[in-house]
């Protein structure tokens, strides 16, 4: 590889996030056209099947990523089971997603009476829930994952326990979602 392509490889190797072409040009002292050309050279050197890393262009710029073929070995090297007990906020958020999915973040906030961003983030990160498109109003919808089912030993969501065992007013007719939202609003008003 030419020196500029090598320098770009080093920069993308080190940068924790995708780097825009303009920033690569600034750092190397070359112009953007020269950088683009060298990126093409680097991309060709990392073409699928040639190297252990691949060059990717994402929204924020260019980045190096490990080649997909190495995924299985990478998991064996890096994966650690991370299943600490769920915090109350995580358990509540997960229960809402599991019983109501798909459900939006604002709905979760309304039911809990308090925002659940940190709990939601952790559950997303641990792969227990995932995004599932957007609601009519543009809010991101969340649902549980197959990993969630495995971690709870469930074959499907139909196996979730009937909440009536814990229901303070089991006789009530209204739909679960409806009742949870009403209870949440009542908590907020109190």
């Amino acid at each position, binding site marked *: 590889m030419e020196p500029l392509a090598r320098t770009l490889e080093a920069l993308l190797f080190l940068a924790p996030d995708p780097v825009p072409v303009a920033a690569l040009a600034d750092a190397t002292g070359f112009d953007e056209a020269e950088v683009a050309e060298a990126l093409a050279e680097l991309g060709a050197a990392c073409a699928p099947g040639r190297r252990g890393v691949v060059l990717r262009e994402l929204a924020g710029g260019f980045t190096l990523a490990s080649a997909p073929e190495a995924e299985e070995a990478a998991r064996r090297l890096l994966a650690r089971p991370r299943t600490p007990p769920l915090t109350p906020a995580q358990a509540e958020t997960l229960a809402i997603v599991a019983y109501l999915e798909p459900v939006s973040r604002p709905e979760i906030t309304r039911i809990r009476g308090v925002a659940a961003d940190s709990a939601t983030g952790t559950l997303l990160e641990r792969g227990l829930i995932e995004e599932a498109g957007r609601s009519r109003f543009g809010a991101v919808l969340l649902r549980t994952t197959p990993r969630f089912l495995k*971690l709870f030993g469930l074959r499907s969501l139909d196996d979730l326990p009937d*909440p009536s065992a814990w229901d303070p007013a089991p006789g009530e007719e209204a739909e679960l979602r409806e009742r949870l939202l009403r209870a949440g609003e*009542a908590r907020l008003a109190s």
Partner: protein
Amino acid sequence: MTLAELELDLEVFSGPFDLMLTLVLREEVDLLEIELAEVVLAYLDVLEARGELDLEAATEFLVLIAALLELKSRLMLPRADPEEGFELDADEAAEELLARMLEARRYRAAAEHLSGRLAAEEGHRFRTAPPPAFLRQVAEADVAAVYEPADLGAAIGGLLRHPPPLPLDHLGTARVTVAERLAHLRALLRRGGCSFDEAVRGADRVTVAVTLFALLELYKAGEATWSQPEPFGDIAIAATREGI
């Protein structure tokens, strides 16, 4: 500067530092009578006069003076068993000092070696980005069931609970209105301001709350400002220029 250049003028000895050291080691000068603090001060004086610090010489001085201090403190300690005394003879003491100097010198050289290595590694940087989350997760096929579905049911049950209705009977009918308290505050402000405590002296809790509300209204309207120099301190209320 080298230690040979350090001239001392002490009560029991006057001359260069290394001569003093020699005489101490030969027991021609009694170490117990030498004020080592004076030696340190003399050294500092010389350093100050020179305005420069030779690290090598400074370290050597520190090693020697530390060794002398240790030797002196041993001599000063009462001996448990006079037969067993731990007096060092001159040669032994010289050997000990030499060993110390060599040891200190060895690690000074090792330190230079390490600093050189670090500088030589300057161009090699490592990746700091953590591996992507999906690779840090155990493959789905290997996931074990560790959580209880009942915990989810219990969480839903908790969320279905309505809060107990707030008992409202302890609230009497409002005895004061914001309008009343606004008038009260404005009257105080016309007299040149007041503290919040004065504005609510003798009032009940509801009146205090309504007064605070009225104060916020005045602030919003630009009629009054307040300041509180410390948390929980008194609040000073003053009229703004527009307010007057």
